[in-house]
């Protein structure tokens, strides 16, 4: 799935990485607990989260992710957006709640992917 399809499905606004919406992504995870992202994520390229601080971007960078979707209409501060631009990440914000955002992406073919310990 291309990131621009995620934008359409979630009626999302692009906050960073507007030039990278043609990037293909194959799996995603939804998580607010960054410790768990670090513990279990293996190959997920998209992180859906309601957590809204610079550590979200650093965690995504550590896990080689390509795109962060802030759900529940959350908009991170400019420092977070700048950090994402610096690392080539796409940042989206959507009014969808976590459950429905994940559901829409999954239903349209964006898989969960495998996790560590699988």
């Amino acid at each position, binding site marked *: 799935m291309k990131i621009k399809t995620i934008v359409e499905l979630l009626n999302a606004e692009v906050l960073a990485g507007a030039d990278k919406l043609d990037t293909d992504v194959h799996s995603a995870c939804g998580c*607010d*607990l960054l410790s*768990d992202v670090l*513990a279990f994520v293996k190959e997920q390229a998209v992180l859906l989260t309601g*957590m809204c*601080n*610079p*550590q979200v971007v650093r965690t995504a960078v550590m*896990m080689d992710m390509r795109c962060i979707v802030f759900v529940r209409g959350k908009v991170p501060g400019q420092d977070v957006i700048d950090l994402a631009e610096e*690392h080539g990440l796409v940042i989206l914000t959507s009014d969808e709640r976590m459950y429905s955002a994940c559901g829409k992406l999954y239903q349209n073919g964006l898989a969960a992917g495998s996790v560590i310990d699988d």
Partner: protein
Amino acid sequence: MTKEPLRFHFDICGENFTSAGEASVSIKRILRQIGISPDIIRRVSIAMYECEINMVIHANGGTADVDVYTDKIILTLKDEGPGIPDLELAMQEGYSTAPDSIRSLGFGAGMGLPNMKKYTDVMDIKTEVGKGTTVTMTVFL
């Protein structure tokens, strides 16, 4: 004769949580530039990130040294914080003494030390209450 390692040193600022992780992001970039494989880079940088976060939460920062040998990478993170009174307990998944302010930022779930152990081949912790903690982690290439 063992070839001298490439050495990288970082001072970890403990004053605010916002900048925590900057050293790990830097080392990730450096390891990529010197051609280390992506899988190794990810393991090293996650382990260092977890440790860096811990140092900022609990120990007011410290130092991180990364030595890259031809066959291994050794991470040494040293602080002069309060030390870990019960290391066995601290190693258990889910055990945490992090304050609520940190939990509300997505950390403090008690996964840090277990994660560091999981992502590295050898982990050694020397800690003394009131003196500080030194964590040494090795990842073989």
